[in-house]
Each structure stands twice: as structure tokens, then as C-alpha cells.
């Protein structure tokens, strides 16, 4: 895939400043993650005093998306911007491959296992999940999937077979 689709690069110093503001906007469901950690900011454009931010939803029905859009607007207003446009694009579809390394570390520290390396795997396998998920509490790899669906659309429920603790896994998507 095209590299600049993966990591949006800011072209101008003005866009760079907006990017810094966006780094402070957190996900309402997982407050340790910022919108830039999640990889949902696809483009930042500043021209004629207008800021245009293009975002992409994680899951189609994620109820946090409307809130995220509002929070981005508020953060930009607070930073002194007045003309703000927020666009939503679906293509290319969001993937956890866009999550930053820093974001993955924050998730782990928060007690949520971060998505495994890559999304390139088969989901057809029944009664099994081929990903190797590390327990965020005791670092054991002896873990099992309890349910593909967790407390939010982006998470699955796992349990550690060693320390016995159930935990959330931010699933590969």
C-alpha cells in the first residue's frame, strides 16, 4: 500500500501546528490514546485561515466517532482557530496497522493488549484465533480468546491461562 496513506505527512508548518493540537485530543472510550495514536487523522490542511481535518471512523457503528469530531473542533477552537471543517472519509478503510508504536505502548501500560503486528491473516478459522496475544499483566503468551466482542467494538475479550486474569485485546482490524 501507498506509504503516505499510512502515515499522513504534514506539508506545511501551519499544518504541523494543527497536528500538535490534535496530539492532545484523546479517545473518549480509551482515554490513554490520542486520535493521532489511533491513526484516524488522515489529512490536515490549512489555507486562508481555514483548518480542514479529515478523519476516518474505526468501526462503522463506533459511537465515539461523533464525540471525537466534537472534541477535535473544541481543541482547535481553544488553540485559536475559528474556521474549522472536519471531513469524514471511508476509503481507505481504517486499519489497526495505522496505530502508532507509542499508542501500542500506552495501551499495554493501560492494561489492554495492543493489536498484534499485522492484519494479514485469515479470519475464517473457526473456534480459534491465530493471533499470539500477550497478557498485559503478567506478559504470558498462554492466553485464550473468550469472546471476539468486548466492551467496545474495537476490543475482544481474552483470558490469561497463567495469571487467570481476563483482559481486553484491541483486535487487529
Amino acid at each position, binding site marked *: 500500500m501507498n506509504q503516505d496513506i499510512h502515515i499522513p505527512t504534514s506539508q506545511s508548518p501551519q499544518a504541523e501546528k494543527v497536528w500538535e493540537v490534535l496530539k492532545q485530543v484523546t479517545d473518549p472510550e480509551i482515554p490513554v490514546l490520542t486520535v493521532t495514536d489511533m491513526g484516524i487523522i488522515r489529512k490536515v490542511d490549512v489555507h486562508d485561515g481555514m483548518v480542514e481535518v479529515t478523519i476516518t*471512523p474505526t*468501526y*462503522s*457503528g*463506533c*459511537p465515539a466517532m461523533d464525540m471525537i469530531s466534537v472534541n477535535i473542533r473544541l481543541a482547535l477552537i481553544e488553540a485559536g482557530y475559528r474556521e474549522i471543517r472536519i471531513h469524514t*472519509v*471511508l*476509503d*481507505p*478503510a*481504517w486499519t489497526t496497522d495505522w496505530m502508532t508504536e507509542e499508542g501500542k505502548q500506552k495501551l499495554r501500560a493501560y492494561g489492554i493488549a495492543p493489536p498484534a503486528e499485522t492484519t494479514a491473516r485469515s*479470519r*475464517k*478459522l*473457526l*473456534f480459534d484465533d491465530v493471533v499470539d496475544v500477550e497478557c498485559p499483566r503478567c506478559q504470558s503468551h498462554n492466553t485464550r480468546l*473468550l*469472546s*471476539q*466482542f*468486548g*466492551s467496545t*467494538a474495537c476490543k475482544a*475479550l481474552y483470558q490469561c491461562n497463567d495469571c487467570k486474569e481476563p483482559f481486553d485485546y484491541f483486535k487487529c*482490524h
Partner: protein
Amino acid sequence: MSAHTSNQALIDYTLHLADSSLIMAQRSSEWCGHGPVLEQDIAITNISLDLLGQARHFYQYAAGLINQSADHTLKPATEDSLAYLRDERAFKNLLLTELPKGDWAQTILKHFFFSVYQSLLYTRLQTVPDKDLAAIAAKSLKEVAYHVKWSSEWVIRLGDGTAESHQRMLTAIEELWPYTGEMFRAADYETGMVDPSTLHAGWLKEVQDVFAEATLPMSSESVYMHVGGKTGLHTENLGYMLAELQYLQRAYPGAEW
């Protein structure tokens, strides 16, 4: 085909996709707080939410198309007006999606039939020239993959489970099979989109594979198949559901909270 009729066909087709997802979501959400165990209560409500999100994307696209057309009875349209303010006869969802949720076996089987169909349909839809429909399909497909896996596992768990769960699956097959044919019979507005009849063989194959593992028998292809949902002719179940779904916006137009 004139520009007007082809635009109307695209609107109808988009509404058909939106309506099937919305009605499936609404019906499944009835399990919220009533799932057999907590994890499955969470699973089915997550799936409902995915489907609702997909419906919203289709409705948003349809609303844009309607508002761009010169004169349209649904104008001005929003995603909300399309979901809350259309009557039963205007809905184009598959009959399968509006059937009562029944027991867990019926809900599982319905999700299995529907998500296998959706995964085949969206796989094709993501390559159509219409960029918006293709993008929604590609996005949705990633979520539907989870639904297929989840429902397939449950069909096997129940079919190859206890005598009771096996019996309930047999009853569910008898109940739902006659509503599967509609998925593969094209309505007029599907011309030029994905021809649903071309999805039938793939769908049968996948159902057959999972049924074999679940020790469940395939139903006969020659049973009478109910149709009508795609063109607004529904079972009595839809009206009751819409009455509940639309009540607030009908009684208090524009209410927000």
C-alpha cells in the same frame, strides 16, 4: 436507461442495503440485556451496532443522492428522516431481517444466513464503479467477517450440541429457510449493480460446509420462497417494529437528546 430512472434505481438500491442493515440491527438489539450469557449479550449488541453504523453510511449516501435530484418525494432527506419518517411500504429490507427474533437458535441462524450473504455481496460491491457504495462495502466487510465467524461457530455449537439445541436448530431451519430465496432474486433496481443470483452458489456452499460440521441437514431448494420485502411488501412483523423504532420522532418531530 434515462438519467432519472438510473438515479432512482441507485437511490432504491442504496435504501435497500440500508434498510436490511437497520432492520437486522433493530431486531438483534432486542437481545440487549436478555442474552443467554453476558459475553453473548455483548456480542450481539456489538453486531447490532456494526449493522447500525453500516445502515447510517448507506442512509447518508442515499440522502445526498435524494437531495441532489431535481424533485424527489423524500426531499429534503437526512439519514434520520430516511430511518424514522418512511412508512412500512417504503422499506426495502429483506423479509428475513424483520422476522421475530425467536429463540437463540433462530437468532443465530438468521445472523448466519444474513452475514454469509452480506460478506459475498460486499466482496463484490467493493469493486463496483460507484465509489461511495464501494467504500461503504469495503469498510463493512471487515466487520461482517467477525459476524460470519461468530454465527458459524454458534451454528456448529448448537447443531452439534445437545439433543435440545439440535432440535431447536432444526426448527429454526424450517422457519427461516423459506426466507432465504429472496436474497438471490433481483429487484428491478438491482439491475446494473451486483446481480444477487450470482451469489447463490457461493452462499449455498458456505452454508453446506458449516451445516455439515454442525450435523444439520440442508433444506430442499424446492421449498416455497417468500419474496416481497425488496419491493415494500412485508410480513406483519415490520409494522410493529417500525411503530416502536419511529414512535419518538413521529410523536415529537426533531426531538434530540
